[in-house]
């Protein structure tokens, strides 16, 4: 019951965000769009935003809200979604630093964390150019949205009972804030802040609650993972776990100490990580239920399809599957001999490169 209530409040938050952006007017929306118009700017913005909030669920839900409000186009949003995929891996990478005092343990833990980074970077390197050249991912998402029966009225509003249920408290909030100010900018800002706080806090509580609720089952599943090879069952486990706790970082942060201590191999942890990558897209899909435009659903589906195709491209063939694993092992081997490299990697990949990228391309 608590989790359902929190999910409802999460949707209210997304809807508030959407309402706030609309209240800020067309000029703000145009300005924001211009800043992330370049796909690499969008990619780096997605990385940076996710690193700052430490949650791809928050950042992708926000992106869906922006698309739902008409502020971002699908084409602008897709690179940001891909950036969110990369940015979310910072949590497990930082978690692996806790093992830094013990060489072999750190090497294994760091490899377990960075295999996630490397997989996402490879997936972006493959699919971002494809998306930019052919719109393959978003076109596939459009078709899927059609098949799902979303009423694709161009530029119009969709009707759904969930949206109607969510809009009510947003209207009350808007009226309440509206009574405090005559300025649309202030009203819009208040709604945006309110929406973001609600998104952030509800996801945090959902994650915490679900983690406690299913901890014992997760533990049993992890124990069974140790004694078997990961494979597709491991992938399914990562998917289901992450959907349940609404956080890929929780799933991957559990894997890091297990691999670090040596009870789980990197090769068995890898498919669980991939499952988590796919499972975390559920949050954006949920968020799309609360937005006006069908484009929100399309972006959310694009997120899922991107991760799914990433898995289908890299995982099935053993020789290809081994690439991110071996790269992670080599990176970890080097990092374990030179801890300065560790700091450079974390700060560089997750902060410096995105900031420079935003300056150059934004």
């Amino acid at each position, binding site marked *: 019951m608590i989790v359902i209530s929190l999910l409802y409040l999460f949707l209210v938050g997304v809807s508030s965000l959407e309402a706030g952006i609309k209240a800020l007017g067309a000029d703000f929306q145009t300005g924001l769009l211009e800043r992330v118009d370049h796909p690499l700017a969008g990619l780096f913005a997605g990385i940076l935003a996710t690193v700052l909030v430490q949650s791809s669920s928050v950042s992708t839900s926000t992106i869906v809200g922006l698309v739902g409000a008409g502020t971002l186009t699908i084409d602008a949003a897709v690179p940001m979604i891909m950036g969110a995929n990369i940015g979310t891996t910072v949590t497990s990478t930082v978690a692996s630093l806790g093992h830094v005092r013990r060489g072999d343990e750190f090497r294994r833990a760091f490899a377990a964390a960075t295999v996630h980074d490397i997989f996402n970077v490879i997936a972006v390197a493959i699919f971002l150019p494809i998306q930019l050249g052919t719109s393959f991912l978003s076109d596939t998402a459009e078709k899927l949205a059609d098949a799902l029966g979303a009423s694709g009225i161009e530029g119009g509003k969709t009707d759904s009972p969930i949206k109607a249920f969510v809009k009510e408290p947003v209207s009350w909030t808007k009226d309440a804030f509206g009574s405090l100010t005559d300025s649309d900018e202030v009203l819009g800002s208040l709604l945006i802040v309110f929406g973001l706080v609600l998104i952030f806090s509800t996801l945090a509580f959902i994650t915490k609650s679900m983690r406690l609720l*299913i*901890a*014992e*089952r*997760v*533990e*049993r*599943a*992890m*124990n*069974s*993972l*140790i004694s*078997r090879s990961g494979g597709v*069952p*491991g992938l*399914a*486990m990562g998917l*289901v*776990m992450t959907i*349940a706790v609404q956080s890929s970082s929780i799933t991957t942060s*559990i*894997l*890091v*100490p*297990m691999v670090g*201590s040596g*009870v789980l191999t990197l090769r068995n942890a890898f498919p669980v990580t991939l499952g988590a990558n796919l499972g975390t897209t559920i949050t954006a899909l949920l968020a799309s239920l609360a937005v006006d435009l069908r484009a929100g659903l399309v972006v959310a589906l694009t997120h899922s399809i991107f991760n799914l195709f990433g898995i289908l491209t890299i995982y099935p063939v053993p020789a290809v599957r081994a690439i991110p694993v071996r790269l992670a092992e080599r990176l970890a081997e080097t990092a374990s001999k030179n801890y300065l490299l560790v700091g450079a990697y974390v700060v560089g990949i997750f902060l410096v490169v995105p900031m420079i990228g935003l300056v150059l391309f934004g």
Partner: protein
Amino acid sequence: MVFELFRRGDAAGLEAAEAKLIQMLADDRHSFDVATSALLTGADTSLVGPDLRETDARVNLAERELRQALVVHASVHGTSRVAAILVYMSVVKDVERIGDYAKNIFDVAAQGINLSDAEDRDVLIRYRDRISSMISEASSVFADDDRDGAADFIREADILLDEFDQHVSELVVTEREGKEAVPRALLYRYYKRIVAHLMNLLSAVVMPLDRLDYFDEERVRP
């Protein structure tokens, strides 16, 4: 594997660790009984040996599995259960060592030593029977987290340790031949170590984490 996420079922985490520890103690008692049967009642070592090796392999595997389970438990639950995890990490070693000393006792028998006709056989068997019972008692006391039971156990065990030390001291200065004195000294030594490891196990019931394996007089005083 993924179905474990949907199943209620067997205990996980620390409950599972405790169950494994109790099973290890049951195997330890079996190892001790069969090893001492070879030395004190003349059981055929060629028959006892395979049984003992199989039981020992089971104990070693259980130790590894228990440690793995503790790592998983810590990974899932974070630092909230760190004290209990550290306790199990410590005591599992004591339990595993009991099995090792049972093997050491068998090794004496495997050297051709047979004390089934010895004049002090009754004393040795009385100690054997008491220690065998104590392994089961320790298992129950630990499972029930019985503080009073643990304190009583430690007090009695402490007295036994002194008795074993006394026997070893007597054997050190005895005029008996080496082949009579040495097996007995080894046996008392192994008896002592087994009882000491049982005491270490139960120190987890009465002592704080940082003083595992140490015994506070105040905590075990009747």
